[in-house]
């Protein structure tokens, strides 16, 4: 096949199979010099697989790869970086108690004997200045924020001479402001002739930074287009295949009674630092209170304090005016609180137990499921069958192990179990994280349904679009505080983004810039 001069990367007919899945099917993909190429698609569309092939983690079953017009085989990440391809993964690969410079040189074969750290530190600072990536080369990784760690990964790749930088969902861990800084950096890199492949499922980012967009759907290329020729609406329909949205029916919930009330709650995190710093909020019957914020600002601790899994240091938590502060998890469950935890396989289910055993996790004590000291497994099986049917959980059978469920089905099972106890309050942390669009929509419509039936829902999410679609009100968390609570008619994305980044007021942001 003829190679175009300006294409630094060309991939032809790439196919990759995993047991039971065709992850990539006959994919053609190219990147030209000095362009930002967005790779857009839902979870499971095959974006990461394709890029893992390009960066040497996987080998394609079929297809060929050309770099600067030469056909090569990329056998390992080292091989990839030798060819000028560097990938920044979603989960960073850094050594916590090494310095920035040490991490950057780690694993390199040169220099062979003497490590001149000062010289390396100088180079690192020079590189990071050039691209506007603020970094202290001597700082140790554990001292850095997530955004800074990402910069280390980027500088690491640049230091190793990457001409093509692959970023896997880089903004997932960033505040909107940090994301904007990252985009500025990407523009600077583009200006020096480097190419960037940007994996994302966020349309606004694509419209913001990309020159070209390749949309993947179900492991195939849906289309490759120039950004200036498309609208975000068109991209969305390419990505999903159809336009969809569940709309929250308007309902006046401001008058209804508060179900959950937190006043001035403080709590410590796992490392003994203050994780919740004087939180006050209320969730009313029949409303969804969305909690927005970058993960790690106290959301997990908030859910744990409410459900009794973490001690509140001060303040009070009440449910229907009944004090539940520091009650045991069991007492709180019995008073009508259901909980969809953030880590569904780690906390929400016991992966090696059967689906039946997982479905009775909260109800095994009840009269319906037990007779005296014994569990009534006939009743349990009936419940399991009912729940699997009602929530359309796809499974090999109710006696198969829960770990074999896909993410979406595990979440349906979990959420189904939690709402089958007719809760007064449902605490849901990141309920659609990592799910494909179909499953996420199913989860969302269950939540809306529960809201309409009068359940008070505390919904924590990092997906602003989701919060805006589902919430009656949104509270924004930053560093363990509630920065503000906005009603449906008063919010806009920019405002929420600023609050998420800890800027309390729009005027202040203007003063800063």
């Amino acid at each position, binding site marked *: 096949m003829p190679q175009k001069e300006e294409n630094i990367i060309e991939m032809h007919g790439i196919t990759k199979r995993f047991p039971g899945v065709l992850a990539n099917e006959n994919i053609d993909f190219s990147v030209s010099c000095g362009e930002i190429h967005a790779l857009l698609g839902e979870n499971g569309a095959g974006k990461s697989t394709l890029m893992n092939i390009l960066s040497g983690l996987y080998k394609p079953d*079929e297809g060929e790869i050309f770099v600067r017009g030469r056909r090569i085989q990329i056998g390992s990440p080292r091989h990839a970086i030798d060819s000028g391809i560097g990938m920044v993964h979603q989960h960073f690969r850094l050594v916590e108690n090494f310095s920035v410079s040490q991490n950057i040189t780690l694993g390199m074969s040169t220099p062979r004997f003497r490590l001149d750290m000062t010289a390396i530190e100088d180079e690192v600072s020079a590189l990071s200045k050039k691209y506007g990536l603020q970094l202290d080369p001597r700082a140790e990784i554990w001292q850095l924020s997530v955004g800074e760690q990402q910069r280390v990964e980027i500088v690491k790749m640049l230091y190793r001479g990457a001409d093509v930088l692959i970023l896997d969902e880089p903004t997932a861990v960033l505040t909107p402001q940090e994301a904007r800084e990252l985009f500025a950096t990407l523009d600077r890199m583009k200006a020096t002739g480097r190419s960037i492949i940007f994996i994302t499922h966020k349309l606004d980012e694509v419209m913001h930074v990309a020159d070209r967009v390749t949309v993947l759907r179900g492991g195939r290329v849906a289309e490759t287009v120039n950004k200036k020729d498309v609208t975000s609406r068109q991209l969305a329909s390419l990505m999903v295949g159809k336009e969809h949205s569940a709309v929250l029916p308007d309902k006046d919930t401001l008058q209804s009674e508060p179900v959950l009330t937190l006043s001035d709650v403080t709590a410590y995190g796992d490392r003994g630092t203050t994780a919740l710093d004087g939180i006050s909020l209320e969730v009313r019957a029949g409303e969804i209170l969305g909690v927005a914020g970058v993960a790690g600002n106290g959301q997990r601790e908030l859910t744990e304090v409410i459900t009794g899994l973490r001690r509140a240091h001060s303040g009070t938590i009440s449910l229907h005016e009944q004090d539940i502060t520091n009650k045991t998890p069991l007492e709180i469950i019995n008073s009508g609180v259901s909980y969809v935890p953030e880590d569904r396989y*780690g906390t929400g289910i*016991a992966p090696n*137990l059967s689906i039946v055993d997982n479905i*009775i*996790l*909260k109800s095994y004590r009840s009269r319906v499921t037990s007779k005296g*000291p014994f*569990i009534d497994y006939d009743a349990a099986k009936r419940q399991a069958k009912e729940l699997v049917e009602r929530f359309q959980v796809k499974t090999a059978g109710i006696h198969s192990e829960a770990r074999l469920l896909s993410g979406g089905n595990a979440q349906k099972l979990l959420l189904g179990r939690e709402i089958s106890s007719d809760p007064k309050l449902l605490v849901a942390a990141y309920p659609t994280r990592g799910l494909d669009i179909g499953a996420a929509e199913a989860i969302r419509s269950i939540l809306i349904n529960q809201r309409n039936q009068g359940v008070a829902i505390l919904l924590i999410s990092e997906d602003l679009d989701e919060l805006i679609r589902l919430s009656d009100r949104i509270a924004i968390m930053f560093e363990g505080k509630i920065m503000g609570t906005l009603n449906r008619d008063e919010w806009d994305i920019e405002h929420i983004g600023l609050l998420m980044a800890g800027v309390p007021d729009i005027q202040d942001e203007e003063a800063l810039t």
Partner: protein
Amino acid sequence: MLGTTVTRGKEKAAQGRTWKIRVEKRLEAPAWWNAVVPMISITLALLFGAIFLKMTGYSPIKVYTIMFKDTFGTRYGITETLVKASPLLLSAVGVSIAFRMQLWNIGAEGQIYVGALAASWVALTFTDLPAYIMIPAMMIAAAFAGGLWAFLGSAPRAIWGVNEIITTLMLNYIAIFCVEYFVYGPWRDPLSFLFPLSPVFPKSAWLPCFGNTRIHLGLVFGIVAALAVGLLLSRTKWGYEIRVIGENPDAARYSGMSISRNIILVMLLSGAISGIAGMCEVSGIIHRLQAQVSAGYGYTAIIVAWLAKLHPIGIIIVSFLFGGLLVAGYSVQIYGIPADIATMLQGSLLFFVLGVEALARYRIRIIRSSPEPAHHATPGVARKIT
């Protein structure tokens, strides 16, 4: 998606062909695996033992034949196997229930000793009790003592998170020394010619035996305990909690189970069962307390429980196998072969079972492909080995 695919071994370009050996993780073990793995492991352990025997100048085939014939080929061998299996069975059931909850109770040996001690105290103190009161009283005392001993190991774990492996292990030595204190001191039989033995128990404190064999009621206790624990784990609310905590303590906490409370309760039960094993030894076999109550049954029980994958029926089978191994060890002594060969076989059995199981989670594929670098990655011949 496959987690990691390890590619080991260099590509060898011999005769224009490329060979690759890949070690990859299985997504799921096939169903027949559970039957085949123990077979392979036992064969490997026997081979391993054979190499040792050969090196020390014995004929492995001859030794194995003697071991097999004397154990399973004679009436004495079979009854002795059952005698040795009884304490193994009881204490393996005891430790298995703790293991189910990921509680590493290494203290079965100590729990056997204190169980024996408490049962002996009852037998030597209330000598006039009729058997139908004496035996249950001894059992209760032994269960109580074993439970208490396990509690001493588990309470620090439940309250402060102290590692129970260390505490239960150390308590073993304390228990053994306690028994020694009594048999060398206050309870020494004046007629024992200074041997560390207590007086013989009254007849009412002897566990009934089957016919004229040495097989005592302890065997029945063991089988009943195994079945009861099996029922407990699979059918009851408490058993359900134990399984959930063992699989995922975070999910257990999340669903409102109290982990500390279950640590205490499960260890009480675990210790009580091992305590009864100790009572059966003194009441069924020795009929008195002596310095050595157990031939390391509490430790062997750990191996038994693991080999049986903590499954109650499996524990019954493996206990008989290991009882047989102990008898076989004694029987080869007559021919001048050290009885330790049996102990060594036990050890290598565990080693190979764990090893084969770990390896079974992987499969090896040999990929042969054409000399031209495989841009189409022609799978060529892919052959599965294990």
